[in-house]
């Protein structure tokens, strides 16, 4: 492993980067990729030198699903313990995005005022990142079919997470219930390995891709290692976690701001990581408070009020996520819309729609199907015997029609990433929109 020598960044690169960032902002850009690119060209060791000054080093969160929300929870749990935390909050989970975030907070002399950095990294880019900046701790959530049309094989994605773990210097937290992630432990020697996991009776709520047609990748229960944090019970916006192992284990139950089974399990992941990072020195009351208040990350599904009635946006981007979305929320009494795009950021391959069962929607039906691949989705529903009341590929037209036909009932839209962005943008034109959580 390469040893990264602390080195102060060249002042010129900081100034140029800051200027580039200001210019991008003025031009109305998101202020993320461009300045990062400039600094990277000028000073390739920039990130390593800034981040290596942090007293508690760098923590990395990666995996296919849930990394934005989990990263946010880790940040809030650590802040609740009084740490100054730097994070890549712009949601651009690439090395350049991290550089851009650093530039926003760095002093002209190249100091980052923080105790620790918690970074969300996309699997593919994380591999480059960890070669430049070795994380002290890493949290690896899951490997699911998602960007497979980019990476090729699910085993390739697992290999990327393995690389992250191998470059981590102190401790690695692994998802015990994801066989591909749990198996990463086999190739680690020097790192302290911890797991987060599920009580056996909860496993049925978290089907993996492999479970869809009988499982081959899950370990037999007897072979499972003990978990540092175990999710033992699941309620509506409520979770019970067993912390620690053996005789020292204790159970805590808490209300949560995040909802859905998936985010509750992400909370277990965040707790396991925070316990490893802090060691024994934890303020328990503060931890519980932060856990209760942590909210899901922006853009990963949210609850709005439009025209006085609730509207939930649920992001779906792979079969496991869609199945969880369908099983986490009951369809009863809710008007449902589904919006499926196949732009680059969504993934071009529509095969995954056939790996989700939509039969739970059959009784209520689906009010509107939209997006570039509206007809693929409608066809999928037809073969599952789900009645569809409208098909309109144009998102804006479909949304207006959906909302005007269901002004007073609670509404839920399952949507892919770029469909969600377009819907949110159009929702901005409605006057009575209120976002909560």
């Amino acid at each position, binding site marked *: 492993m390469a040893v990264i020598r602390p080195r102060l960044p060249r002042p010129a690169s900081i100034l140029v980067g800051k200027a580039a960032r200001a210019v991008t902002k003025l031009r109305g850009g998101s202020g993320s990729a461009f300045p990062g690119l400039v600094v990277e060209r000028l000073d390739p060791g920039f990130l390593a030198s800034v981040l290596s000054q942090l007293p508690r080093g760098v923590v990395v969160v990666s995996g296919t699903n849930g990394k934005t929300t989990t990263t946010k929870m880790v940040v809030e749990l650590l802040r609740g313990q009084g740490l100054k935390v730097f994070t890549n909050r712009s949601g651009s989970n690439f090395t350049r995005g991290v550089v851009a975030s650093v530039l926003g907070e760095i002093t002209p002399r190249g100091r980052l005022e923080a105790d620790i950095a918690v970074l969300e990294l996309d699997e593919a880019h994380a591999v480059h990142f960890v070669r430049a900046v070795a994380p002290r701790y890493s949290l690896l959530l899951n490997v699911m*079919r998602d960007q*497979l*049309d*980019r990476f*090729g*094989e*699910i*085993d390739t994605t697992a290999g990327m997470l393995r690389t992250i773990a191998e470059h981590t210097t102190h401790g690695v937290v692994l998802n015990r219930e994801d066989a591909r992630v749990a198996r990463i432990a086999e190739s680690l020697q020097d790192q302290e390995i911890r797991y987060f996991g599920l009580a056996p009776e909860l496993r049925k709520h978290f089907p993996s891709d492999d479970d*869809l*047609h*009988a*499982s*081959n990748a899950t370990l037999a229960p007897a072979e499972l290692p003990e978990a540092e944090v175990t999710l033992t019970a699941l309620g509506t916006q409520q979770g019970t976690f067993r912390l620690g192992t053996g005789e020292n284990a204790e159970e805590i139950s808490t209300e949560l701001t995040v909802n859905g089974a998936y985010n509750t399990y992400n909370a277990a992941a965040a707790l396991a990581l925070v316990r490893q990072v802090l060691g024994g020195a934890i303020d328990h009351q503060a931890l519980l408070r932060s856990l209760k208040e942590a909210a899901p990350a922006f853009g990963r599904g949210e609850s709005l009020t439009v025209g006085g009635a609730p509207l939930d946006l649920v992001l779906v981007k792979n079969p496991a996520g869609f199945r969880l979305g369908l099983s986490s929320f009951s369809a009863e009494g809710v008007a449902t819309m589904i919006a499926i795009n*196949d732009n680059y950021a969504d993934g*071009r*391959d*529509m*095969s*995954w*729609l*056939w*790996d989700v069962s939509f039969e739970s929607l059959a009784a209520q039906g689906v009010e509107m199907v939209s997006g*570039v*691949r509206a*007809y*693929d989705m*409608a*066809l*999928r*529903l*037809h*073969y*599952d*015997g*789900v*009645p*569809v*009341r*409208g*098909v309109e*590929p144009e998102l804006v037209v479909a949304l207006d029609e959906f909302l005007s036909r269901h002004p007073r009932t609670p509404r839920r839209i399952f949507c892919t990433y770029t469909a969600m962005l377009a819907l949110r943008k159009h929702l901005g034109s409605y006057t009575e929109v209120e976002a909560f959580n």
Partner: protein
Amino acid sequence: MKQIRVLQLYPRDMNIYGDYGNTLVLQRRLQWYGYEPVMLSYNPGEEFPTDPDILIGGGGQDSGQDRIQADLLGIGERLHALAEQQVPMLMICGLYQLFGHFFETRAGRRIQGIGILDVETYGTDKRLIGNVVAESDEFGTVIGYENHSGQTYLGDDAAPLAAVTTGEGNNQRDAHEGARQHNVLGSYLHGSLLPKNPAIADFLISTAVQQKFGEQLGELASPASSPLPLQALTERARQTASSRPR
């Protein structure tokens, strides 16, 4: 009601990128044509079901392929006999490769197939990924999504399933997509293949019905469940898919 037995090979290990959709489409269309589908599956070490009328199989991870390979050689003779009897079959991606003579890895190791299709496959370090559109005299425009790094070449006894107009298909050198020999079809297309290519689904069904009961397929009676009937939905989905970037 007249039964048609549909056998899915290795659903546990070879069933990826929506290949399950092929099973579902056969099941539903058989019902809509007035038959009773009997859905069967076969995994390594299990007893091979008797008298299947249609066989289907999908793709898998490399690890899945390793798990089933020895077992497949064990049932190879039985599958050969079924193919000789003109039983219709559809094999996607990984099982398409193993229905050929062999898969030669990048390192030169040969993984033996059962040779029902006169094709051979060579591992490459380039993955062919993206939307595919291909033309077939028999099935019209064939639409799907490919994702494979093995490249397949046809021998004299196998005919191409279709000629690629968008994408790569079997390999980067010729324009062939898939293969056909007897009534056995091989293809690289996921997507799933059958929902957007009902002509291929109906070929499998009508061949089975013809052989078992000596009768032609009647009308498809699919329940109306959306503003558009099934045929129109399928046509629109096909139009969109064939107009999307690779």
